[in-house]
């Protein structure tokens, strides 16, 4: 690690160009609604989309270049960039869909009790900035700041639907648990700083010694892990998830379940892989237990859920458990080989990112279907398995696409979810986590039960006699933007994985 002295030479503007562009977009979209009146306000989401597109292009331009900025504190290596692509695509399709559904100046004839704030767009862009910085950060303070940048707008977004009590409840619960998590994180960081005297991941890597027991450092690491655990909803820090995902507007739930989890895991992989990997012998047991607990509790709780959004929330917890396998693989691989700048990330990172990409599109697609099926968020929060009974007879397209996303989440072949699980478990097996893989496989079987329960209800049961909540799906054409993108991505990753794997194969540790 170079000296602590900051010098302006270390700023690489190309590396941080995506976040500069999006930040500028935040300011513009915040002020534009004052200038534009009435239907002219459509320009606001348009600006958001253009900004995301520009950020995508500027990220793509530095692919493979391994740029870093601020003395290595911010690294735009391929892992960051691949994660950024996921974040930007997710934000892009969510912005389109949200504009269509909620903005009064664009309202489709079916109408909607709307949360008509143009602030949605700057808030979502802020979340994307936070997510990108989280995946790029190699310094605990920057990670902390990025997590806050990501979280605070999300608290607001969760409560965006002011007419819904559940939405407000979700916002408050998310805020309180989030604040709690930030406390853990900040305290853990301060203990690590006390023990090591440095905050950069590489400095921590150099200072970590597996032989000399330093309990201040261990306590700090444990607290930071708890903070991360809250953010990506690992058991036992998962209790907020069902209420928050159920109460938030469905698209925001999808946004949280996909983007936030992906951002959290890239940050975790970086911290555990590049920061504290020498202590692998100490933390692997804890992570292995949490992984087993997370998948089991998530799946067991999902078994009996009747509300679809809660079921998806618990299933997203279970997926976090599978993803923890990647952390273990990376820890094992890198603690044996040692991390060197420029080294390929190896198949651990490859399968983690592949799994994330597959999971992200399946979960956001599922939430989008719920959103599509219900006239407003009030019904969306209460949509039950019984309500989708016989959906195939009424709305075959909805049923087919929902089934596809559920198959992907469950891990059935020809979907991204199958290959994601396959690569992840195979890699874990080859690294010797036999017991844990057996556990994960049993869990995957368990999860198939509740995913299939929905599919059985849609295809093999007759429609309920009582009025279903999803009699009249919104005819809004904009939803296609989300649903078809997710469908395409799920099938593409599932059928031609080589294209993405080839891309990921060139991902390497930033210099």
């Amino acid at each position, binding site marked *: 690690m170079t000296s602590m002295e900051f*010098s*302006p030479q270390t700023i690489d503007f190309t590396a941080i160009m995506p976040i500069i562009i999006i*930040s500028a977009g935040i*300011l513009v979209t*915040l*002020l534009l609604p*004052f200038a534009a009146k009435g239907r002219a306000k459509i320009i606001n989401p348009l600006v958001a989309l253009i900004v995301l597109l520009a950020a995508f292009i500027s990220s793509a331009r530095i692919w493979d270049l391994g740029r870093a900025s601020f003395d290595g504190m911010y690294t735009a290596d391929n892992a960051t960039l691949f994660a950024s692509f996921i974040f930007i695509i997710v934000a892009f399709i969510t912005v389109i869909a949200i504009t269509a559904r909620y903005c009064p100046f664009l309202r489709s004839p079916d109408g909607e009790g709307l949360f008509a704030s143009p602030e949605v767009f700057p808030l979502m862009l802020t979340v994307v900035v936070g997510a990108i910085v989280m995946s790029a950060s190699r310094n605990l303070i920057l990670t902390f700041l990025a997590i806050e940048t990501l979280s605070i707008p999300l608290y607001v977004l969760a409560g965006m639907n002011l007419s819904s009590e559940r939405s407000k409840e979700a916002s408050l619960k998310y805020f309180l648990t989030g604040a709690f998590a930030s406390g853990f994180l900040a305290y853990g960081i301060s203990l690590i700083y006390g023990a090591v005297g440095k905050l950069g991941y590489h400095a921590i890597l150099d200072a970590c010694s597996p032989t000399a027991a330093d309990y201040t450092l261990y306590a700090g690491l444990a607290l930071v892990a708890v903070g991360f655990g809250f953010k990506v909803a690992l058991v036992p820090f998962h209790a907020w998830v069902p209420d928050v995902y159920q109460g938030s507007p469905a698209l925001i739930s999808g946004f949280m379940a996909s983007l936030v989890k992906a951002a959290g895991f890239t940050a975790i992989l970086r911290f555990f892989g590049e920061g504290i990997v020498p202590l692998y012998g100490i933390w692997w047991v804890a992570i292995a237990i949490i992984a087993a607990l997370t998948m089991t509790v998530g799946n067991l709780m999902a078994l009996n859920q009747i509300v679809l959004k809660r079921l998806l929330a618990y299933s997203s917890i279970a997926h976090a458990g599978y993803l923890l396998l990647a952390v273990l693989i990376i820890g094992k691989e890198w603690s044996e080989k040692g991390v060197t700048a420029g080294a390929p990330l190896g198949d651990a990172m490859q399968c983690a990112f592949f799994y994330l990409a597959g999971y992200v599109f399946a979960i956001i697609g599922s939430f989008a279907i719920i959103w599509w099926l219900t006239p407003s968020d009030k019904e969306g929060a209460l949509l039950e398995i019984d309500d989708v009974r016989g959906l195939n007879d009424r709305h075959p397209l909805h049923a087919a696409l929902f089934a596809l996303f559920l198959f992907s989440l469950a891990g059935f072949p020809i979907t991204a979810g199958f290959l994601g699980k396959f690569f992840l478990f195979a890699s874990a097996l080859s690294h010797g986590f036999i017991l844990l893989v057996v556990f994960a496989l049993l869990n995957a079987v368990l999860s198939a039960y509740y995913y299939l329960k929905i599919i059985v209800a849609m295809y093999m049961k007759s429609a309920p006699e009582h009025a279903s909540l999803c009699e009249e799906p919104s005819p809004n054409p904009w939803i296609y933007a989300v649903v078809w993108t997710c469908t395409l991505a799920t099938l593409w990753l599932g059928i031609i994985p080589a294209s993405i794997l080839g891309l990921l194969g060139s991902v390497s540790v930033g210099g």
Partner: protein
Amino acid sequence: MLTAYVPILILFAFMVAISLIIIVLSHYLSSRKYSSRERFEEPYECGLSTGGIKPGRYPVKFYLVAILFVVFDVEAVFLWPWAISFQSFREMGYSVFWYAEMIVFLGILLVGYVYLVGKNAFDWK
């Protein structure tokens, strides 16, 4: 090295001891009068009978004052170290960079200010 923490240990011991002593003393010294059953359902307020739950109303503009305070206070907090660091930046030959950094920062805060004006945050009747 650990001897430096002895005062803290003593402090902890005092804290625990005093709280224990007070609890035990109050158990033996206090007269016991159980009031009616409803008393137990009220919020506990250090042994006094409560005045009931009074949410009260306060003008929402205080909330805006707090947000405004953040906007302007954060500005002041960062201006101070910025001003002090000028000399070292000039020695490195980065005066323009030093200046531009703060302009960007103030520009972002200015957007926040304009947003507040646009939202009629200053329109106090």
